[in-house]
């Protein structure tokens, strides 16, 4: 078996980012002291190069490498680019925050890079082992990135909780995978699909395998009733890490769902569609309703994530190329909005002030009109109010539901979206209609760094400015899904 026959070139981005992460780790340990800043910039550069490498030969066909363990199709390439850019964005937003809290260390960024490598492996997995490997690489790095902020009680608690529940979810996934292996005799997704093509839906083993897989996915996505960890982890993690894990891992989760459900278990659609619909409705309902009761912005956004994951599942549950591409579009737009929202919190956070309570936003439009305006756009987009990309994301998903003749589900979804609009509006109300609690001077004394502010501007304005060209993105999603090797 030669190197050529492995077609390792297809995994060039993964290989590059893993080597880069190792190099940065060595540099950080072996080099002179206080080179964290250099490591930070090198990490950003590594992500940029990886994104470029992932985008090369975008239009080329699907390449299966490493004896079908690994697949490089347009979907994987698109997801990898998104993962790299979103992660770089989270790093830029979090720099000042990390520096002020003593977690601006080279380990933090190395862990981040390895997590990105894990997500990229997930995006390209064509085999249960590869998938699991990527998932665990990502998860372990995320646990550690939360625990990095070790002086903070909440962060330690969040890391512990995330680790325990993550391990539980992984074990369920493994159990489901082992059942699949027993049923099909293979760990390769396409072989599983072929083996299960004519499977009897009433067969207990098949159903059990699907249930375990779906439960594990629901855990990872944070869908109700497997969502308990989400608010604690979002709240307890250092905000820079929350920004990181709120954006790119969602893209990876999409890959996980696509490869496993739409790919490997694609012919059992009728079996898992019902489960996903129930999970989705529960998520949108519980997420939107519980979010109203939150007083902490990060917690509120955690519940909002749960409801957005519900919408994402609506797309998947609609099935077919339309449903999947709607979900892909939704998750891309959502991770941009989520990154922006946490980015805005990071821009407001100061060395001595977390600024993550809702009341901290009071009168923001007087203190910091530009950030208030950008956060307003992000909130409106999350609520799905036009003219924002968030509206088109919801439109695509609801359209997929209606097309799949799930009109009543669509009606439930939009009714719950109205409930959701309330707490997004409350953020705008706090920023624009309420008088500030603290003196404006305190905020002005420590403005966010220029690069973070510029990024936030691009991030939030982009959500409106993309509209004339949104056709390109939607078509790209549709095209990528069409060429998804099912």
């Amino acid at each position, binding site marked *: 078996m030669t190197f050529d026959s492995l077609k390792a070139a297809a995994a060039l981005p993964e290989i590059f980012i893993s080597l880069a992460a190792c190099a940065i780790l060595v540099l950080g340990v072996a080099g002179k002291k206080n080179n964290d800043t250099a490591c930070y910039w090198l990490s950003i550069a590594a992500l940029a190069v990886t994104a470029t490498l992932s985008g090369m030969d975008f239009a080329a066909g699907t390449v299966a490498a490493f004896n079908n363990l690994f697949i490089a199709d347009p979907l994987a390439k698109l997801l990898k680019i998104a993962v790299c850019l979103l992660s770089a964005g989270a790093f830029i937003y979090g720099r000042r925050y990390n520096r002020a809290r003593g977690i601006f260390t080279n380990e933090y960024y190395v862990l981040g890079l390895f997590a990105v490598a894990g997500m990229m492996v997930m995006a390209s997995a064509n085999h249960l082992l590869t998938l699991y490997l990527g998932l665990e690489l990502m998860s372990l790095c995320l646990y550690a990135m939360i625990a990095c902020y070790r002086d903070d009680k909440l962060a330690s608690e969040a890391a512990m909780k995330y680790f325990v529940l993550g391990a539980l979810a992984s074990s369920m996934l493994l159990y489901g995978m082992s059942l699949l292996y027993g049923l099909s005799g293979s760990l390769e997704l396409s072989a599983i699909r072929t083996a299960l093509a004519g499977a009897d839906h009433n067969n207990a083993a098949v159903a059990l395998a699907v249930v375990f897989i779906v439960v594990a996915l629901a855990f990872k996505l944070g869908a109700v009733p497997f969502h308990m960890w989400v608010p604690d982890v979002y709240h307890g993690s250092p905000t820079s890490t929350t920004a990181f894990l709120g954006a790119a891992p969602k893209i990876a989760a999409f890959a996980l769902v696509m490869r496993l459900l739409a790919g490997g278990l694609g012919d059992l659609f009728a079996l898992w569609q019902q489960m996903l619909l129930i999970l989705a409705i529960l998520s949108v309902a519980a997420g939107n309703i519980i979010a109203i009761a939150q007083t902490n912005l990060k917690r509120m956004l955690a519940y909002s994530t749960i409801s957005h994951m519900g919408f994402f599942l609506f797309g998947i549950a609609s099935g077919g190329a339309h449903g999947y591409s709607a979900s892909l579009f939704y998750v891309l737009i959502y991770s941009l909005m989520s990154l922006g929202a946490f980015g805005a919190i990071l821009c407001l956070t100061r060395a001595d002030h977390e600024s993550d309570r809702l009341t901290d936003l009071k009168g923001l439009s007087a203190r910091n009109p530009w950030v208030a305006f950008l956060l307003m756009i992000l909130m*409106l987009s999350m609520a799905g*109010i*036009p*003219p924002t990309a968030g*509206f*088109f994301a919801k*439109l*695509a998903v*609801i*359209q997929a539901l*209606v*097309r799949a003749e799930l*009109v009543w589900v*669509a*009606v439930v979804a*939009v*009714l719950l*979206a*109205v409930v959701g*609009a*309330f707490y997004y*509006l*409350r953020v*705008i*109300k706090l920023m*624009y*209609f309420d008088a500030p609690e603290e003196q404006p001077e305190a905020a002005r004394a420590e403005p966010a760094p220029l690069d973070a502010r510029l990024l936030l501007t691009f991030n939030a304005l982009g959500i409106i400015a993309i509209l*004339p060209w*949104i*056709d390109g993105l*939607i*078509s790209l999603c*549709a095209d990528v899904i069409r060429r998804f090797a099912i």
Partner: protein
Amino acid sequence: MENNLLSWLIWLPILAGVLVVAAGRGEGERRDALARRLALGFSVAIFLLSVPLYTRFDTATAAMQFGEHAVWVSAFNIHYSLGIDGISLPLILLTTLLTVVVVIAGWKVITERVAQYMAAFLIMEGLMIGVFAALDAVLFYLFWEAMLIPMFLIIGIWGGPNRIYATIKFFLYTLLGSLLMLVALLYLYNAAGGSFSILDYHALKLALAPQVLLFLAFFAAFAVKVPMFPVHTWLPDAHVEAPTGGSVILAAIMLKMGGYGFIRFSLPITPDASIELAWLMITLSLIAVVYIALVALAQRDMKKLIAYSSISHMGFVTLGLFLFNAHGAEGAMIQMISHGFISGALFLCVGVLYDRLHSRMIATYGGIATPMPVFAGFVVLFALANAGLPATSGFVGEFLVILGAFRVNAWVAAIAALTLIFGAAYTLWMVKRVIYGAVASEQVAALADVDVRETAFLSILAVLVLLVGVWPNPLLEVMHATIDNLLAHIAVSKLP
């Protein structure tokens, strides 16, 4: 500019809004003054720009004019598609005109965040014109919802003490209705084989059951906007708390979008369901006309009184539309335009008083005619128009609708005609208590009469109220062909 006049009318105000905010950034009187002047300049320019729509409009045809078409989102077959007919044209002109009035009305009164205030109205103007001109369902929905954002901010930032409750209620009520409409539009998209063109929907054959459901979904969106009984409760709250300019735009234009929606969507897309459910629409309209008029009679707050009077008058619009005859439909259209002038003017009058004494309570005032004779003249004129006095615009619409109702059912007409009594009762009673009688207090005695600025915007509206009342033909001419076409369209069943 010749060929894409509608695009200019939509995007120029939005661009102007951004410019005004940019120019008025920071603090200081000079910045505010600049923002005001820019806003006035732009709003007048936009009004002048909208005049060619009228002069170049072909009244002989019911087809869409000034059309613009371009593909926007090919994946969903969404088009950037604009065009107007005899129903949208008057509403667009009303929008451009009232924006000028609102800018003048907010000139001195608004002292905080002036640039943002002016910009919000300019941006909203563009979005409202977009609603009236959009021929693609998604584009329509986009403008329809986006419009909520500036209004939400206008009420929330510049409103009264209970503004936050009012503005969130306003937003959520409207959003709920709109999202149900969105599902209906997506259903139609799939039923029409992947088209978002509103005109395609007009020609689409539909069985009665889906028609009824679609009708109800549209009803949710438009009835909230009009607003019809029993989903009207957001309106008095929003009106009372909104600043004067917000109330004017809300009453004069936003409410009309409900009526416009019924004309553009419900009637032509689901004609059989409309006929089937006409009894419901007529009943709800009559409840609005009579019951809400009685509610208005009991109000002590002038703004609330006018808000309830708005609901009552809008009842005539929905009543006229669901009579399915030319008198009813034309009456409804005239009523929409006329109500735009009259309710706008009445809210401005309350604003004039509020700016002076910071009270909207009827009891605060009395004998205004003594210190403010010119103002009293205006109020009496608008009040009489509101009560439906012949030779004012208020008479024409109501008269035509009652005439149309007689052809359908004499009882419906008789109940509708009660408004002439109730309307006169609550309006004139308010006028009596506020304008006439003994001077209520020393503060009232010391009131200054309207200045040039206030006279200007009140005169514009007064002239229009009288003009439409005496000579409605220019208005009727424009919409005649479209309404005939609409009625002919409804008369043909769409059942497959």
